[in-house]
C-alpha cells in the first residue's frame, strides 16, 4: 500500500469514530474535543488529496477560531451538565427519522456510485498545478482575479455577522424587552 493510502485510512477512521463520539458523548466539552479531532483528521484528508491551502485554512479557521469560540461559550454558560439528552419522542417520529436518514443515505450512495462516471472537464492535473507554482499560488490567483467580487461579498457577510452578534450579545433579556 502506498503512503497516501495508509494516511487516508488512518485519517478517515479517526474522523468517523470521533464524529460518532460527538453525538454520543454526554458532556458538551467532550463533544467539542471530539469535533476538534474530526477537524484535524479532515485537514489530513485534504492534505492527502493535495488541497494544501484548504488543509491549512481548515486548521486555522475551524480548530483555531470556531472551536475556541464553542469551548469558550460552553465555559461561559457553564452548561456541562453530564446527561445524555436524547429527545423524548413518539414512535412515529422515530420511524420517520429512521426512514428519512436511510433514504438520504441511499440517495447519497447512488450519487457516489455514479460519481465514477464523471469525466474531467478541466486540465488542472497534479503535475499541471505543480508546474504553475503549486496549489497555494493557483488558488490565490483565481481568488483575486476571477472571484474578487465574491471575495468582497464575503467581507460584507462577515461584517453583518459581527454587527448581529454584538447586537444579540449586548441585549439584556428576550422577555420583557421592548425590542
Amino acid at each position: 500500500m502506498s503512503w497516501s493510502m495508509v494516511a487516508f485510512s488512518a485519517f478517515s477512521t479517526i474522523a468517523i469514530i470521533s464524529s460518532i463520539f460527538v453525538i454520543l458523548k454526554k458532556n458538551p466539552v467532550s463533544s467539542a474535543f471530539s469535533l476538534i479531532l474530526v477537524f484535524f483528521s479532515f485537514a489530513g484528508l485534504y492534505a492527502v488529496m493535495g488541497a494544501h491551502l484548504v488543509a491549512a485554512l481548515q486548521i486555522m479557521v475551524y480548530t483555531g477560531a470556531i472551536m475556541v469560540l464553542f469551548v469558550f461559550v460552553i465555559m461561559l454558560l457553564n452548561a456541562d451538565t453530564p446527561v445524555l439528552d436524547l429527545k423524548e419522542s413518539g414512535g412515529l417520529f422515530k420511524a420517520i427519522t429512521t426512514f428519512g436518514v436511510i433514504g438520504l443515505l441511499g440517495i447519497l450512495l447512488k450519487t457516489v456510485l455514479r460519481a465514477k462516471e464523471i469525466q474531467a472537464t478541466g486540465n488542472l492535473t497534479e503535475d499541471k498545478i505543480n508546474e504553475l507554482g503549486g496549489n497555494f499560488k493557483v488558488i490565490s490567483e483565481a481568488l483575486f482575479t476571477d472571484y474578487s467580487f465574491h471575495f468582497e461579498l464575503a467581507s460584507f457577510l462577515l461584517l453583518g455577522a459581527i454587527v448581529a452578534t454584538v447586537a444579540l450579545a449586548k441585549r439584556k433579556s428576550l422577555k420583557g424587552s421592548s425590542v
Partner: protein
Amino acid sequence: MTEVMVEPWMLLVVAMIVFAIGLLGVILRKNLLVMLMCVELMLNAVNLSFVAFSRMHQTLQGDITVLFVMTVAAAESAVGLGLIIAMFRTLKTVDSDQIQMLRD
C-alpha cells in the same frame, strides 16, 4: 505488489458517513450547543465532497468554493452562539425543548 492509490470516490464515502452522523446528531440531541456542532460536522462533510469532486473534474473551483463555505460557517457559528447566549440569559437553559415562548 500493486500500488493502491487514493481515489476521490473514497473521500465521497467518508463524507457521506460523516454527513449522516451529523444529521442524526441534529435530529436526536436536545442540547443546542451539540446541535450547532453537528451542523458544523455536516458543513465539513460537504466541504470534503467539494474537494473530492474538484479532483474528479480536475479543476480548482471546488477548492475555492470550500473557502467561501468556511467563511459562511464562521459567520453562522458566531451568530448561532450569540443566539444561544441570548436564549440562555432568558431561559437559563440550552435545552431546545424549552423554547416555547410563543405558546404562552
